Structure formats: structure tokens, C-alpha cells
């Protein structure tokens, strides 16, 4: 298998606080890898560095051989890394289908001038955006809600919509930040099936943060455990479950709560 993504010695400091230090990660095409750890371990900070929201204080991020350090978030999205957020971040007043169409907007070739005066290229592109968005909605089972406002969708569907929107940008690597948070067991199962299906259909590589251990153990091929910004364990789900350091990190967290 070929390597798609690599992070070397990533470190993020805010003032005097080190949120993440010495983080290494290599992802092969088609893998699903989990990132777990107690609250405040620095998982989302890692996502924010990869997706271009933070510039790492140290270290290097490589995607398909290109260095991502210093690139802006939207540039990284265009290169093929899409993300979802811990607290779902849809555009509430836009329709469901508009939320998805927007994901294609970053790749249109029409200028705003063409868009205002309805040049033929823009008309074609707009139809194409609409068509692709409908296909994607079908894929995640939201086609019948296309004309609704996204804020009126129930929670579970909003999660799916956010994932579909990320897919619209045409990613090779998908970063999912706690996709199963707040879902009941049957919804979680449904989501798990959906993610696996999307991974096949779109040829995705997935890195996900999750607190639902059952979910992580079932979906991930490899897991990395962070605590206080430091990687404390790495391995297959079975290895992680038995690792004493991981158990301590989690039990320690329970005691301080």
C-alpha cells in the first residue's frame, strides 16, 4: 500500500502551553485510523493543524508528497483533505441541497461576473453542482430533505449532511471529529455502515477522533492514543485494549472527574 499522508514531529504551542508535542503519523491509502485519548489530550489540535487552522510550531505535514505547512485551510481542502467538526457546523439558514452545492463551489471555473450574467459556462456548472449534490444526497439517504432548511433536520441527519458536505469537496483524506457523538446505538450502527460504504465508493482514507470505544474498535484498523499532547500508544484495536498505559490514562481521567 502506498503512503498518502505523513506527519512528522508535529508540535503546537500556545504561549507557554504545549498542546501537542512530537506527533508522528503515517496513513496509507484506504486506511481507517482512529485518534483517541482523554478530553484535552490534543486530538482536535492535531486536526486543526492538518486542516490548516493552526500553523504547527514545529514539524512537517506531507500530503501526497506536498508540504502542507503554512497553507491556508481552504487551500488544503482543495488539495483533497476534508473535515467535519465536533459540534456540527452546517449553514443553518441554507437549504440542505445548498449546503452540498457550496462544497462544489470551490472548484467552479466561472468568475462572479459569469455568475451574475448567467454565462453559459456558469449555467452548465450550476446544473452540474445541482446534479452532483443530488447524487450525494441520495448516497447518504437525505434526498427527500433536499429542499428543507438544514437547521430543521434532526441531529443524526445533520451529522450525515455534514459528512456529505465534506465529501462534496472531493477529498482523498477525510477527517471526522467525533462523528458518533450524541447518537444512540442504532444510529451509531447506521453511521458505521455508512462510513464504511462511503469509504469504498469514494476511495477514501479516514482519520477519526471518537470517544465511543465500541465504535472505534469496530471501525478502525489502527489506533493512536494521545494523552497530554503526547502519543502514549499505537497499534491494532486489540493491542490498544490491553495496553496498560492506555488503561491508566482513561482511569486517571475518571478519577479526576
Amino acid at each position, binding site marked *: 500500500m502506498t503512503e498518502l499522508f505523513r506527519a512528522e514531529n508535529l508540535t503546537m504551542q500556545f504561549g507557554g502551553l504545549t498542546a501537542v508535542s512530537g506527533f508522528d503519523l503515517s496513513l496509507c491509502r484506504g486506511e481507517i485510523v482512529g485518534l483517541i485519548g482523554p478530553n484535552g489530550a490534543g486530538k482536535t489540535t492535531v486536526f486543526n493543524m492538518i486542516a490548516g487552522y493552526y500553523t504547527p510550531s514545529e514539524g512537517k505535514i506531507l500530503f501526497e508528497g506536498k508540504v502542507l505547512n503554512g497553507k491556508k485551510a*481552504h487551500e488544503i*481542502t482543495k488539495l483533497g483533505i476534508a473535515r467535519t467538526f465536533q459540534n456540527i457546523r452546517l449553514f443553518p439558514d*441554507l437549504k440542505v441541497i445548498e449546503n452540498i452545492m457550496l*462544497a462544489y*463551489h470551490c472548484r467552479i471555473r466561472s468568475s462572479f461576473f459569469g455568475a451574475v450574467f448567467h454565462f453559459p459556462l*456558469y449555467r452548465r456548472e450550476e446544473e452540474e453542482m445541482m446534479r452532483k449534490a443530488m447524487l450525494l444526497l441520495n448516497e447518504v439517504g437525505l434526498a427527500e430533505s433536499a429542499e428543507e432548511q438544514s437547521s430543521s433536520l434532526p441531529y443524526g441527519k445533520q451529522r450525515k449532511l455534514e459528512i456529505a458536505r465534506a465529501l462534496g469537496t472531493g477529498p482523498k483524506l477525510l477527517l471526522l471529529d467525533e462523528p458518533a457523538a450524541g447518537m444512540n446505538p442504532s444510529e451509531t450502527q447506521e453511521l458505521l455502515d455508512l462510513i464504511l460504504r462511503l469509504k469504498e465508493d469514494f476511495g477514501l482514507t479516514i482519520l477519526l477522533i471518537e470517544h465511543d470505544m465500541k465504535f472505534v474498535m469496530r471501525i478502525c484498523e489502527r489506533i493512536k492514543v494521545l494523552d497530554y499532547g503526547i502519543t502514549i500508544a499505537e497499534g491494532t484495536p486489540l493491542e490498544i485494549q490491553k495496553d496498560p498505559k492506555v488503561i491508566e490514562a482513561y482511569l486517571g481521567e475518571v478519577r479526576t472527574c
Partner: protein
Amino acid sequence: MDPHRKRNQALSLAAIAVVAAVLYFADSGASDYQIRILNNCAIFAALAVSYNLINGVTGQFSLGPNAFLAIGAYTSALLTMSPLEKELSFIIDPVIWPLNEIQTPFYVSLLAAGSVSALFGLLMGFPVFRVRGDYLAIVTLGFGEVVRVVANNTQSVTNGPLGLKGIEAHTDLWWTSGFALATVFFVGRLVRSSYGMALKAIRYDETAAEAIGINTFWHKMLAFIVSAFFAGIGGGLLAHLITTISPSLFTFFLTFNLLIIIVLGGLGSTTGAVLAALLVTWGGEALRFVEEPMQIGPLDIPGIPGMRMVIFSLLLVLMMIFARQGIMGTREFSWNAVFSGIRRLQRGPGKAK
């Protein structure tokens, strides 16, 4: 596709025809005062729609329209005034080259007004949007002051505090209403395109917009520049309507008026901005009585100049607290909404939700 598209287009054309007819009769029959109000309505509608693009649709708080109006007004006036007129006006310092030689047709001067204004928008947007949109308000507010300072001090370009006099009155009802129509068309189409959706996305959640690949910097810039362009043209039209301009004309008061309009219309609603522009322009005239002496029962109240502005600013604060949505919220006027409204009424108020 909308099944009523043909009907709606026909209705829109009919509405335009009705407005044109009204304007035609007003042009020949109405009093100067009425025509002035109609002109103001049209110019302010266009200005409000373009201002709403950056403040309402994109959610970036600009306080710049008065500066852009000033730039547009001076640019176009300096271009249409004849070299002789300029020589006579500039008594302290003669006007610099090439302004002392050129004279352009009105429409060229308007395009120049919009372009110069847009260029300043670009220059200001660059430092601001690179960091935080937060500072846009204070940078544009400061820019308004700077434009005033510069206009007062560059004798050989702006004629300083004396201002420009004897600008030809090119602006008539057709120019102002045509400008309003063009602005509504351009901004309306832009807002409904995927570019407009991207602007709305930036208003709701800039981080999420970045995450789906939207270059938020350039999109904010786009909205700001387009807004500045139309404000510049509006300034040019204004200059050729009132025929005399000076730095003290373009105070923050103008921007404040536009702010009231777009808040009242509903931040983000293009049709709301038009509606509110008509309401506020008319309301400003209707409210003149509060500044005149009056008698309520045994009470003699002397005229209080400035009372209208107190009322307007209080209105703005109260709207922000109690009626943030304004008249239209973020919705737009559409024939479909009108027809479904009529159907609801026909079914009787009992069944209406």
C-alpha cells in the same frame, strides 16, 4: 425548476412597466419637491442594496459608504466639469494636470467613479480581511475621516473646503431609477448564485466555509469591492443631482442612514433593503414635524433641531434589541410567496397558520 417561472417573469416585467409609467408622468407632472424625493428614494434604494451586500449578506460590518460616496462624487464631478469651469472654481490653487484638461461624458465619469471607489475598497480590504473582519468597522470609520481630511487639504485636486460648484445637473429620474434597477439586478443575481451562497456561508460560519474550500479572504473582498463600486456610482449621481459638493457633505450621517435602512429591511435581504429605503426616505420627510415648534394642549414646544436623529438612533438600538429581523429577515420578496399568501387569505384566516 420553478413551474411558475413564466408567470413570475411576466409579473416582474409588468411591475417594471408600471414603475416606468409612474416615473414618466412624474418626470413631466410632479413638483420639484416630489421629484427630489423620488430621486432620493431611487439612489438610497441602490445604495442600501449594495451596502447590504457586505453588511447583511456577508456579515462584515463596514461603515464605509460615506467615504465611497465622497470618492465617487469627486471623481465624477472632476471628470464632467469643463476645463474652464474648473479654472474658475479653483481660486486658491489651480487644478493639477491632467484634471485641468480632460472632460468626459457623464456615463464615463460614473464608471470611473465606481472604479476608483472599488480600488479604494481593495486597498482597505487587503489589510483588514487578511486579519479579522472585526477591524473593518473601525478601519472604514477611520477611512471616512481620512477622506474628509484629504479632501480638505488637497487644494489642487478637490478645491479644499470650498468644494466644487457648478456641476451640471445630468442626473434625472431615469438615471437614478435605472441605477437602482441595475444595482438590484446585479446584486440580486450575485446573491442567488453560488458566489452569493458562499457569502452567506461566511456570514453563518467562517470556519466551516474555509473547511469546504471557500477562499473567505477573496469572497469578502469581492463583496466589499462590489459594494464600493456601486456606492461610488451613487456618489457620482448624487454630485450631478445636487450640483454642489464639499467635504462636509459626506459625513457619517449618510452611512448611518443606510445602516438604519438595511437593519429595518432585514440584514441580508435585498428586497427588504429596497422596501426600507423607500420607507426611511419617505419617513425622514414625514418626521420633519418633530423639529418644528408645536402645541400639544396647553404645552408650547419650541422646535428642536436634531430631534429626528435622536429618534432614528433610538430606533436603531431598539430594533437591534426587539426586532433584529427587521421587515424581511433574510427572506426575499418573490411572486410565489405573494401567491401562497393570497391562497392562505382565501382559505380564510381561521385555517391560516
